[in-house]
């Protein structure tokens, strides 16, 4: 039987500001086939599909449905052309039943009759093998049931072309195989199905053809039966590009942070970190690579105390033996505490406990530099809040990916943002504004932040400048461990290199730098070692100087055996 074209895209280009998200993409989808759109994070898969679904409008190019040219300006237009998209984040009203959600917004003649809707939903469900109770409320549903509602919602509106954005990201293996069997039945019914994914095993399992996108461009479309994981990976990651990032050899790298068997569950009970273990060394940059949402964020947040891990250990090791005590990071309270624990000596081997001494005398003695540590500092950070970690004198800096949400306060100026780190200092309830102000000026000077003034709300600065302010503040804290999540995301080339340079400087100062990145080229040139995380589990730690992109790409996407075993 001759294959019939359902959807054609010709020369589709989409720009966001100066960034090209899609460039001259041509794509054909036939009736009765499952097409996989494969690519790395940020390669433009979702943008491309959003243009078919009416979320975005292409700058250039044409879309044909069943051979006729169509203009799709809104999701409504898409539905009118028989196109429906199931987004990664479900758009459902929690309080409504499945049937109410499905019928929402559908223009139908006749009386509003939920019974008829229920019957029709049941009929669709039976036809394709969905399991669904039309009268169940969404808030009582599992993720997979919600996805089923979304798919039926699209089918109920009569869609013939279904686009699924990362449909398996949130499903268990059993749910995935059930989804795939439903997709196959829809395919047999003559529907065209496009799934956006970066999981190779699923592509090979379910699709008929694969379109590969890289950096917004359509690389190739191949028949699934003629290809394999290695070939797909190669097309996905492409050839290595040299970036000329200056990387120095690590000097006296000594273990600084030990993470052992860390496990974490999110609010929905999903196992987001599985037995994560690694060691970060002072004086080196440890890269973390992985598909977005593989647990990178959760890992950094659990180390910094924002998300308490369920089991495992986070050991901070600080070589302190025979080094002088300072008040720079230790509070008076902490110094007294450590004194009572016999942690100090006076250089001649006599213990110093500060017992019964007045604060002034303690301060004087410590500042003279004659009080030395007895032992190295070894602190378990698990189950400590960020504040407790800070009070323990552990210098841990975290540059979160959400800069204006978690890192800085957008409506405050640079000085005030500096104070987020120092507001607990100062006396008798009054804030010390002088030092933060000086620090703000210093950062503006040293990092060449372009801003109208120190008190301009940081929200008004460009992405690169915001990031410089944030990284500058964290570095000014002279950290022992510096964690940065996607620090160059959305930054232009120059700002990116400034950030690489800052991270390298920290590495040379003996800081243990943990760098979560998405661009494999950057990871390979900037980092010393790269840890690859896949669905919350570490799938490998490789030497960045010898590893290849394909190797890391495979570690990032390979079939997840651990997950399959664990499922009930």
């Amino acid at each position, binding site marked *: 039987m001759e294959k019939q074209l359902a959807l054609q895209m010709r020369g589709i280009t989409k720009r966001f500001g100066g960034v090209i998200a899609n460039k001259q993409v041509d794509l054909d989808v036939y009736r009765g086939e499952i097409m996989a759109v494969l690519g790395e994070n940020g390669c433009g898969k979702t943008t491309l599909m959003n243009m078919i679904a009416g979320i975005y409008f292409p700058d250039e190019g044409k879309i044909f449905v069943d051979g006729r040219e169509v203009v799709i300006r809104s*999701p409504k237009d898409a539905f009118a052309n028989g196109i429906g998209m199931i987004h990664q984040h479900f*758009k*459902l009203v929690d*309080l409504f039943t499945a049937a109410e959600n499905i019928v929402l*917004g559908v223009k139908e003649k006749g009386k509003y009759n939920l019974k008829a809707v229920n019957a029709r939903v049941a009929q669709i469900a039976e036809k394709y093998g969905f399991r669904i109770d039309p009268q169940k409320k969404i808030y009582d549903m599992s993720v997979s049931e919600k996805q089923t509602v979304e798919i039926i919602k699209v089918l109920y509106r009569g869609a013939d072309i279904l686009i699924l954005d990362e449909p398996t990201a949130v499903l268990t293996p059993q749910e995935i195989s059930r989804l795939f069997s439903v997709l196959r039945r829809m395919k047999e019914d003559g529907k065209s199905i496009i799934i956006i994914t970066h999981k190779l095993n699923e592509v090979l399992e379910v699709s008929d053809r694969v379109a590969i996108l890289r950096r917004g461009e359509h690389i190739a479309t191949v028949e699934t039966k003629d290809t394999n994981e290695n070939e797909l990976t190669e097309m996905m990651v492409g050839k290595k590009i040299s970036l000329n990032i200056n990387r120095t050899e690590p000097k006296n790298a000594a273990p600084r942070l030990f993470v052992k068997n860390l496990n974490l569950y999110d609010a929905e009970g999903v196992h987001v970190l599985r037995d994560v273990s690694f060691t970060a060394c002072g004086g080196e940059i440890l890269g973390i690579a992985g598909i977005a949402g593989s647990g990178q964020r959760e890992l950094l947040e659990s180390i910094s105390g924002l998300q308490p891990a369920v089991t495992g250990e986070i050991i901070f090791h600080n070589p302190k033996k025979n080094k002088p005590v300072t008040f720079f990071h230790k509070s008076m309270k902490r110094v007294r505490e450590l004194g009572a624990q016999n942690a100090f000596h006076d250089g001649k081997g006599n213990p110093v406990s500060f017992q019964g001494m007045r604060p002034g005398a303690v301060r004087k003695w410590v500042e003279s530099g004659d009080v030395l540590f007895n032992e190295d500092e070894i602190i378990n950070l698990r189950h400590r809040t960020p504040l407790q970690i800070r009070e323990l004198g552990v210098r841990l800096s975290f540059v979160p990916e959400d800069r204006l949400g978690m890192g800085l306060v957008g409506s405050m100026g640079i000085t005030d943002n500096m104070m987020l780190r120092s507001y607990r200092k100062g006396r008798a309830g009054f804030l010390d504004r002088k030092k933060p102000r000086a620090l703000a000026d210093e950062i503006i000077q040293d990092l060449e932040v372009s801003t109208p003034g120190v008190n301009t709300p940081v929200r008004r600065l460009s992405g690169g400048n915001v990031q410089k302010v944030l990284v500058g503040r964290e570095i000014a804290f002279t950290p022992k461990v510096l964690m940065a999540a996607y620090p160059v995301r959305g930054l232009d080339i120059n700002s990116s290199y400034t950030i690489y340079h800052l991270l390298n400087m920290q590495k040379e100062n003996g800081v243990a730098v943990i760098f979560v990145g998405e661009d494999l080229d950057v990871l390979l040139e900037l980092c010393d070692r790269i840890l690859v995380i896949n669905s919350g589990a570490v799938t490998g730690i490789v030497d960045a100087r010898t590893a290849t992109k394909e190797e890391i790409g495979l570690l990032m996407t390979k079939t997840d055996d651990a997950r399959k075993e664990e499922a009930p």
Partner: protein
Amino acid sequence: MNIWLNFLIDSLAFGATFMYGSTGEILTEKAGHLNLGIPGIMCMGGAGGCLMLNLIGKSGLPPVLIVTAGILSALAMSMLMGLIYSFLTVTLRANQNVTGLALTTFGVGLMKVIMSKLDATVYLVGPKALYRWPFAGRQDSMQCLGVLFFLAIAVAIASSWVLYRTKVGLHLRAVGENPATADAVGINVSRYKYAATCIGSGIAGLGGFYYIIDYMASQEAYLSLEAFGWLSIALVIFALWRPHVTIIGSTVFGLLFSCSSYITNIDWIRVTMSTKPLLKMLPYVVTVLVLIISSIRNKRENQPPSSLGLSYFREDR
């Protein structure tokens, strides 16, 4: 007639004031907008109605026409207030609490100005018998009930029917729960918000008109109206955002509110001037209790609409 039956009927009649107010507020809140302007809107509804009655009260038109004109004017004035509120909060996305409070301050003040200029003998005397149809002229307490009272019950039941039994209601609830989802399936979010707010305000305005003209029917009635606006907002929580429950709720509130006057009839309870205000607190105490109980039970259906108080802007993600 039995004093306790009087008490009940009086409370029913009194409760119709907040039945209007809270039915109107529920419709607005179901669209995701917390309208704290309800007291001001009820006041303006009352003022608008009285103004019209004052204008045409002595014109010699048939009484039915005069009454209808009064009701329409009350509706128009309060819907205008609702329109201002929706323009500010839906189109300009102003803060809903601030806008609502401003409208209340504005509405209450303007009503006092208007009402102080009107001639109570004109707007009150004329068509009173009409409001109390079919019970006008009865000697027992049934004479407290009338057209506007039954209209309040009808509106409450009709609102519930629309909200839970029609597609328009389904869409309106979707807008209040999750406007982004509603928008994605092609529902015109702004239109629903405007309509719900304006219709809700109109209903609330009728409550103010009813209180001044019908229930109290006195020259000083307007001075105490604002308090019942706030009580209406409390009643929304009591009724768990279901218009038909306001019928029971407003009766309970009415009973609690006027119990200070009736309780003196029980021999062994002594009510002094200083305990009366304490008794008048009861409706609010009960609201707090309902709020606590409904939060403890934590049933999703009994919670306020999810996006209540939040402005919707499509390009926010």
